[in-house]
């Protein structure tokens, strides 16, 4: 007897599970019961599981009977003539959806080539074994699987036209590519997802060669002329918001240019771009830390107000200013209400990002790198025809990573650019490399994609033939402008008096334990001390009890809280963090006694 579970609930027993499953499937295919029902038999536990619930990932497959797919050429003809549609095929029981569980009982052929008598289903197209982003990688079956993984991952980080209504949106940390293009070498999936409506890269000319070592270790060399012509430029958007919040006692925030009496008033210079309503006007260039929305808040504590209530208005300045290190042009301003009905002002800054050394780029095959150098067009190598590459890619990135698809795309892109057509690079059913090479030959180029090149600086002919072609390159969202950070002095933590952490707060760069070990290993004792001087404090220690004492600088007299006045007190320079440790020890009930001795 076989147990039956309906939506993971035990419902009964069966004497002949095979018949049961068969009827259930037949009824489903005949549309007598819902098409969303899936049934599976688990041989290990001898149980039948039926699922009708929502939330199961299901995928369509073509049914196969006696080694022959039920979908015939006749059907395909009818679909092409718009006599049949997808729903009809499902209703006729030609295509059915399986869930993960039922898939365990199915034997699925990749395509007609693999069909045998035992097969129960066939893939609609072999590309269906890949996910959406992965099937956007052309010639994926010519590369290593891990590179395919990385390639589809970088596509998600690429800049492009993520939404056509981006001008009306207030998304955080978003960029738009200025001249996005549809890839020359595309896949079937690009059409399916309307990739031409939201492209995310540009077709550029690349040369596979090293150039003065500036493309070592995955760095890229970019043509300055190309950048000046608009290659890989993007807009970076940063929204800022201010709300008129309501507090206890009927107090409210006020958006507007703050009065001069307001606590924390900045200089007039800071407010100069604000209009009468306290908001910057559009298309004004805002520098870092300049005020975008002027705002004042009521005093934080009521007591505060009573104390200084001579001038009744002791409001606080709480304006919104551009982030440290981020400038831009005011792109758009929205004045609305939030859910509570308070006034809400949102301002979006736009900043043009021109490629600079350190910006990250990637092809679609996990070949990512950062700009190592931007070279003037005149200094770059050129071909017989006078073609100067947009990007110089290091050949050392190829052998160990085995990204053959990267190389095929270069040839494909070249054929596409010269032949004026798009190349189909759909995984498993792409245009063959041989055909591309033949076409390239017909177009008057060497079939292996190489060309004679000349050194751009000396004009000498290069000994090697250089592999050039066109390919789709993506600018990724990681740009140096968002990453670079340095600090000389700045804010410190209240507790430890050590520098605060984090780029956005202008924090320090930590010299960690292992870095400390390096200085120790070099015996650079005084350098090490100086590096850790950030929380240096002077402490006065009582000679008799060894506790922290007080030194009166005017009377030149020491007072110890324990031993009383006129204690003998000596000063030591120590890190504040250690003073904190001593305090913590005291709070543990331990008595850390410091006894001083002359160093020499």
């Amino acid at each position, binding site marked *: 007897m076989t147990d039956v579970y309906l939506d993971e609930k035990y419902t009964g027993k069966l004497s002949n599970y095979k018949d049961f499953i068969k009827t259930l499937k037949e009824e489903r295919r005949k549309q007598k019961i819902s098409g969303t029902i899936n049934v599976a038999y688990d041989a290990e536990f001898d149980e039948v599981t039926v699922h009708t619930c929502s939330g199961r990932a299901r995928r369509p497959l073509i049914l196969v009977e006696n080694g022959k797919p039920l979908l015939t050429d006749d059907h395909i003809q009818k679909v092409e003539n718009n006599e049949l549609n997808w729903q009809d095929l499902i209703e006729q029981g030609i295509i059915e959806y399986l869930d993960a569980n039922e898939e365990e009982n199915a034997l699925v052929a990749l395509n007609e080539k693999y069909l045998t008598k035992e097969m129960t289903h066939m893939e609609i197209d072999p590309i269906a074994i890949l996910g959406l982003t992965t099937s956007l990688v052309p010639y994926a079956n010519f590369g290593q699987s891990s590179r395919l993984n990385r390639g589809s991952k970088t596509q998600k980080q690429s800049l492009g036209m993520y939404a056509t209504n981006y001008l009306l949106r207030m998304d955080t940390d978003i960029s738009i590519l200025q001249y996005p293009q549809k890839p020359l070498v595309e896949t079937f999936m690009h059409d399916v997802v309307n990739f031409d409506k939201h492209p995310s890269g540009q077709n550029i000319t690349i040369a596979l060669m090293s150039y003065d070592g500036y493309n070592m270790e995955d760095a890229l060399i970019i043509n300055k002329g190309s950048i000046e012509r608009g290659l890989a430029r993007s807009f970076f958007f940063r929204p800022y918001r201010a709300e008129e919040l309501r507090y206890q006692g009927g107090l409210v925030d006020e958006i507007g240019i703050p009065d001069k009496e307001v606590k924390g008033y900045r200089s007039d210079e800071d407010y100069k771009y604000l209009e009468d309503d306290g908001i910057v006007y559009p298309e004004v260039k805002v520098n870092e830390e300049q005020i975008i929305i002027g705002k004042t808040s009521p005093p934080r504590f009521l007591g505060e107000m009573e104390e200084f209530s001579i001038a009744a208005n002791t409001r606080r300045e709480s304006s919104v200013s551009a982030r440290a290190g981020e400038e831009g042009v005011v792109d758009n301003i929205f004045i609305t209400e939030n859910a509570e009905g308070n006034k809400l002002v949102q301002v979006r800054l736009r900043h043009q990002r021109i490629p600079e050394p350190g910006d990250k780029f990637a092809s679609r095959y996990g070949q990512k790198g950062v700009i190592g150098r931007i070279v003037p067009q005149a200094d770059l190598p050129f071909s017989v025809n006078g073609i100067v590459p947009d990007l110089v890619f290091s050949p050392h990135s190829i052998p160990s990573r085995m990204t053959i698809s990267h190389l095929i795309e270069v040839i494909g892109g070249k054929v596409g650019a010269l032949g004026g057509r798009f190349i189909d690079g759909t995984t498993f059913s792409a245009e063959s490399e041989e055909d591309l090479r033949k076409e390239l030959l017909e177009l008057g180029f060497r079939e292996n994609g190489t060309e004679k090149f000349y050194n751009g600086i000396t004009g000498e002919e290069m000994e090697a033939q250089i592999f050039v072609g066109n390919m789709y390159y993506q600018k990724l969202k990681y740009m140096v402008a968002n990453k670079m950070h340095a600090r000389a002095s700045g804010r410190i933590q209240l507790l430890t008096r050590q520098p605060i952490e984090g780029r956005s707060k202008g924090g320090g760069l930590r010299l960690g334990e292992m870095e400390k070990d390096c200085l120790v290993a070099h*015996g650079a004792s005084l350098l090490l001390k100086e590096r850790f001087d950030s929380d240096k404090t002077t402490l006065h220690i009582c000679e008799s009890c060894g506790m922290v004492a007080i030194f009166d600088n005017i009377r030149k007299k020491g007072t110890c809280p324990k031993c009383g006045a006129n204690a003998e007190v000596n000063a030591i320079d120590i890190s504040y963090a250690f003073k904190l440790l001593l305090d913590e020890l005291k709070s543990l009930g331990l008595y850390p006694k410091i006894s001083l001795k002359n160093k020499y």
Partner: protein
Amino acid sequence: MTDALVKEYQVKGIPITLLKVASEESARKKLTAKQTKKVFQKLEDKYMFAKIHPGEAIGVITAESFGEPGTQMTLRTFHFAGVAEVNVTLGLPRLIELFDARKLPSTPLMEIYLKKPYSKDEKYLEKIISKIAAVGLSNILSEIAINLLKSTIEFKLNKKRMRELGIKEEVVIKTIKESPKGTEVTPKNDRYVVTPKNQDGGLPVVYLLKEKIKAIKIKGIKGIEQVLPKKVGTEIMLIASGSNLKEVLEIDEVDGTRTISNNIFEVEKILGIEAARHAIMEEAETVIKEQGLDIDIRHIMFMADLMTTHGTIKGITRSGITSEKESVLARASFETPIKHLINASITGETDYLNSVVENVMLNQPIPLGTGLPGLVTKLKGKKK
């Protein structure tokens, strides 16, 4: 002539062994007095150059010398040592268990060398191996079961296997009877029936007895599971998985001067702390060499010295080396700070701030490198 030179340079602090080699070599090459002098001068230069300066941070450099290649070590745990199908833990896991001074290595192993006539001829091998390799009762059983009704254990011996191993039936029965004493063993057809001494315990007792009987050692040395011969040059030696240094060394045919275990604690117990120091060095070096890395022997020596300098083996852990540190703050800065601080305050310890960590904590110059020497000057007009 050279004797005078040797004496002269010995006073300068050059080790006598080096000087002896230099003088012997000079004599052998028939160098002139002038040339010999030059040799000694060069020797002094080289020796002085190789010396470590005062204030050199050898501890940190050793740590970095192990730490950096450690990051490159493959985390591959198993290594099949050629013919001998013995799994040996190597790589980072082995290095960690070695320096942590774990009581038992994850793969105990022995290298057993044999004395002269036995190491040359294969005919002695079988006899020696049967002396060493432990044979448990489970190895010669063909069947063992509990009779649930009678609360007895029935087993059948594998006679063929016993003949191969040269084990007599009476011996086996006698051993079972003695462990624990009073256990009754009676023959029944081709089987034996074991009746537990105390019958009250019921089935759990019978079950425990069954497991106990299975583990009984019939022959060989306890702890040694497998012995495999290996040819090294013209010599035959044995590799044993499992370790029991004491009993192996008691075997007459074994060459006790070269036989070693990879269990450093066993080496320490049987051969002493100096042998343990050497064992640590050898083990660490094997791991490093096997990974194709190169760490200077002096770093390994320093680690081994550090671990054995207290007379017992101490690991580089909070319960080992670190607990021996003089400074309270240094101990507190490495794991379980509160424990160290409280214990220190109970006993009233004093921290003299003599080493690195404490001074980093207090932001004082560390007493190493440029921070070690002090400058003393006589002030003008002031006496003393």
